[in-house]
């Protein structure tokens, strides 16, 4: 299995090259890959159908317990077969659909990447690996939706899908980490047996919320459904494959996969049923409001996904049975219908339902496929869709307090499905018309063969449900329930209530179809409601985010150096105060007062000199005076150093001060005179800030000096300077021997400063804004 995934990724990245070499024949290797994997999976299936789960372990990041663990049971096999089987057809179809497109190679790259990721997702046996593949599907979907990158709508739809599923992805990551913590493992097979541990864990609820957020965004459940119709900006093969048959079902897969772990609780059941129910009804309702073929299909897909989620929520054996059967049936007919819609679009250039008529004459095979798929969708007798619908009704009518609500919901959607099926399978092809829509090119085999195959699969499965399909689905539902399943699928159940309801659905569906024009005319009346819809909320949120971000940034990063410095100093004062507030030592000035008596006269003079120099500095209007005052302050500082036994420091300070004055004179002699530029109000603010800062620094010195310092370094250097370092000037010995490494760094700084000054004065580029 690992090899299959690896091959997928390798082939994906080879696709652009293959396209360059093989031209349009690139379709051959691309389709061959999923087909090979499909066959490979079929060879594995007897073992799985016999009830064995296959595993394969490939270490990846064992120190984080994230491994490429593969796990194949009924559920994953069902999905994997769907992905590769349908994948093969889609690869062929895409070859026809995008024939001659210059970016076909890239398209195959993304599509194969997606397929492999999806395959990895359903085969992964480590929940973090599931997440990894999950996000890969999101990215490849982003690239595919934005495939027509020069269109603004494509780009924004792609972004929307990415952000919504990305949000879900992040939530899912959180959720899975929590599940992993609750279950104490990331390995699926172990986790599946620790359901009780997880559901009783304190983290269960947050994990559930995050997990469901992930699943719902991916599977376009209300209120995150809005990205799916917009994702139809992608080329049709993508819509058919990702946005109806596979990727959107990843959420459903995840729910199904984790049912034994997370399911069974009230929170799980009710949330799934409520959200699924709303989605079902809403999707169906919205489907009647559109004329674009792909939009209609997208909304019915949303509705179908809602049904699947609801069934997972109910969680009983019949519900699970209904879920897997409907899942397969839906994938078959919806995929077909999407492909059909793509063919129609490709051939006629329009997808508007009201403009398409009488295509059966010109698009013979496509129309046959459409008819077959439509009948399956409508749930007409020999088709697989019929079995699905029967089971849905039976499951929803089971003994439960909400049976009527559940039933009404599935019945409603069933009705709409019938109407849509009629419109698509019959309306645009077979309804007689005076002037059938003209074609731009005749039907092509690469375009009509895949839907025909898919649609006939729906018929074959319906006629022979016992062959292969039943055992597979049985194992799949077993994976969710954790108990052996023994159901048998059959077309004919006798005259049961469900049959009657099916017939009723078809009849009412036909009525809906007849009145569809009337329904469409209501569409405009709902427009007010859409303002409050999630799609609009998304737009608002995005716009609000941008405005808010801009405003906040403009306030914080306002370009004024003063305010930056003020913020930094304020932060410093706050932090120092904070650190000393609670249990900092108290300052005892009294003990130090005796030091006052040691004051010498010249010291006081020095002190007064500095203070008065500073006052002059503030008053001064002239540069030269200021420079001179700075010199005075600097020289006074060096006097301090001499007073306290630091002749080297004093000498350095003296020389440096001299040099600084020289540099000042050399450099700044041409600046204009001072102006008072500050505002009065701001000045008080800054005066306060400065004074507080000074006070804090004084306090810090006083408080530190309150305690004796026992420096080992002083003692060691005092002892060793001459004996070990061969020098009597301890400071110099420190500088050139004990801590010469500091000095090395320091002279490097000086060297760089010299280079910098030279470069700055000599190199003056004007339009060097470019790299």
């Amino acid at each position, binding site marked *: 299995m690992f090899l299959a995934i690896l091959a997928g990724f390798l082939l994906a990245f080879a696709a652009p090259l293959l396209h360059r070499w093989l031209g349009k024949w690139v379709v051959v290797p691309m389709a061959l890959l999923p087909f090979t994997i499909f066959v490979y999976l079929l060879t594995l299936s007897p073992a799985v159908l016999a009830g064995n789960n296959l595993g394969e372990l490939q270490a990846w990041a064992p120190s984080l317990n994230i491994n490429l663990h593969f796990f194949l049971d009924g559920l994953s096999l069902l999905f994997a077969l769907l992905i590769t089987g349908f994948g093969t057809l889609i690869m062929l179809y895409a070859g026809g659909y995008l024939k001659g497109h210059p970016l076909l190679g890239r398209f195959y790259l993304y599509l194969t990447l997606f397929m492999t990721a999806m395959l990895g997702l359903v085969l992964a046996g480590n929940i973090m690996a599931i997440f990894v593949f999950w996000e890969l599907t999101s990215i490849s979907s982003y690239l595919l939706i934005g495939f027509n990158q020069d269109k603004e709508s494509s780009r924004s739809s792609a972004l929307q899908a990415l952000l919504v599923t990305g949000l879900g992805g992040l939530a899912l990551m959180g959720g899975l980490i929590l599940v992993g913590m609750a279950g104490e493992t990331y390995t699926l097979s172990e986790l599946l047996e620790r359901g009780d541990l997880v559901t009783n864990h304190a983290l269960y609820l947050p994990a559930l919320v995050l997990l469901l957020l992930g699943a719902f965004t991916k599977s376009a459940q209300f209120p995150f459904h809005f990205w799916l119709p917009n994702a139809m900006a992608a080329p049709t093969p993508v819509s058919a494959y990702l946005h109806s048959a596979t990727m959107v079902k990843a959420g459903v897969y995840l729910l199904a996969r984790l049912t034994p772990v997370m399911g069974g609780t009230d929170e799980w059941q009710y949330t799934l049923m409520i959200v699924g129910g709303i989605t079902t009804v809403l999707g169906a309702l919205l489907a009647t409001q559109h004329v674009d073929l792909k939009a209609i299909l997208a909304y019915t897909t949303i509705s179908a996904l809602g049904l699947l989620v609801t069934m997972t929520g109910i969680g009983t054996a019949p519900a699970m049975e209904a879920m897997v059967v409907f899942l397969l049936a839906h994938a078959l007919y919806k995929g077909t219908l999407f492909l059909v819609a793509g063919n129609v679009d490709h051939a006629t250039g329009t997808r508007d339902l009201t403009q398409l008529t009488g295509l059966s004459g010109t698009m013979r095979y496509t129309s046959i496929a459409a008819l077959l798929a439509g009948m399956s969708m409508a749930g007409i007798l020999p088709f697989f869709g019929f079995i699905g619908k029967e089971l849905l009704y039976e499951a929803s009518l089971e003994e439960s307090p909400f049976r009527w609500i559940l039933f009404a919901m599935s019945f409603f959607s069933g009705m709409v499905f019938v109407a849509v099926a009629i419109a698509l399978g019959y309306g645009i092809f077979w309804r007689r018309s005076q002037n059938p829509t003209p074609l731009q090119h005749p039907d092509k085999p690469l375009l009509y063969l895949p839907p025909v195959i898919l649609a006939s699969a729906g018929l074959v499965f319906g006629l022979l449900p016992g062959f292969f399909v039943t055992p597979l689905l049985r194992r799949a539902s077993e994976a969710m329930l954790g108990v052996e399943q023994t159901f048998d699928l059959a077309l004919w159940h006798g005259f049961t209530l469900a049959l009657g309801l099916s017939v009723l659905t078809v009849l009412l569906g036909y009525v809906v179809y007849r009145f569809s024009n009337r329904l469409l005319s209501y569409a405009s009346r709902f427009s007010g409601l859409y303002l409050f819809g999630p799609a609009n909320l998304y737009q608002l949120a995005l716009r609000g985010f941008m405005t808010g971000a801009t405003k906040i*940034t403009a306030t914080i990063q306002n370009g004024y150096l003063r305010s930056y410095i003020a913020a930094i100093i304020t932060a410093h004062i706050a932090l120092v105060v904070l650190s000393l507030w609670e249990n900092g030592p108290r300052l005892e000035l009294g003990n130090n007062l005796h030091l006052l008596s040691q004051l010498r006269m010249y010291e006081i003079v020095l002190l007064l000199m*500095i203070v008065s120099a500073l006052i002059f500095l503030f008053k001064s209007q002239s540069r030269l005076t200021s420079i001179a005052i700075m010199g005075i302050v600097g020289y006074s500082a060096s006097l301090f150093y001499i007073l306290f036994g630091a002749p080297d420091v004093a000498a350095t300070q003296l020389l440096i001060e001299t040099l*600084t004055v020289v*540099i000042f004179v050399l450099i700044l002699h041409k600046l204009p005179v001072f102006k008072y530029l500050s505002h009065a109000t701001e000045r008080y603010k800054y005066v306060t*800030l400065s004074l507080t800062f000074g006070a804090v620094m004084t306090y810090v*010195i006083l408080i530190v000096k309150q305690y004796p310092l026992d420096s080992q370094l002083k003692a060691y250097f005092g002892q060793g300077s001459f004996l070990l370092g061969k020098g009597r000037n301890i400071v110099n010995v420190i500088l050139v021997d004990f801590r010469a490494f500091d000095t090395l760094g320091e002279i490097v700084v*000086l060297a760089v400063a010299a280079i910098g000054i030279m470069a700055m004065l000599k190199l003056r580029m004007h339009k060097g804004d470019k790299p």
Partner: protein
Amino acid sequence: MEFLLPFLIGILFSASLYLILHRHFFKLILGLILFSLATNLFLFVIGRLTRGGSAIIGQDENVAVEPFADPVPQALLLTAIVIGFGIQSFTIVLIKRVYQSFGTTDLDDMNTTDQIEEHH
């Protein structure tokens, strides 16, 4: 003196910060120089002061005898002063170049690089 020095350093910090918060370039650079001066004194004072005895071993001794000034802060200070000199001279030149390029001495005229550029 030991008692008064912390206050002097506080005053130096206050004064330098106030200068830095000015809009005028020249005051900014004065403020920065004063600020590092204050920091140097801070480092010196907080490493404890010793009056009189410098950190030099006498000709007829092998080890330093108390009281001698702690040589460590002095060595650190020397390094810091020299580094500060490098940075200061760079900053002075920078100020000069800014004035030449922008023709202003008002810091408030320089707030373009962190502005958000308009889009569409």
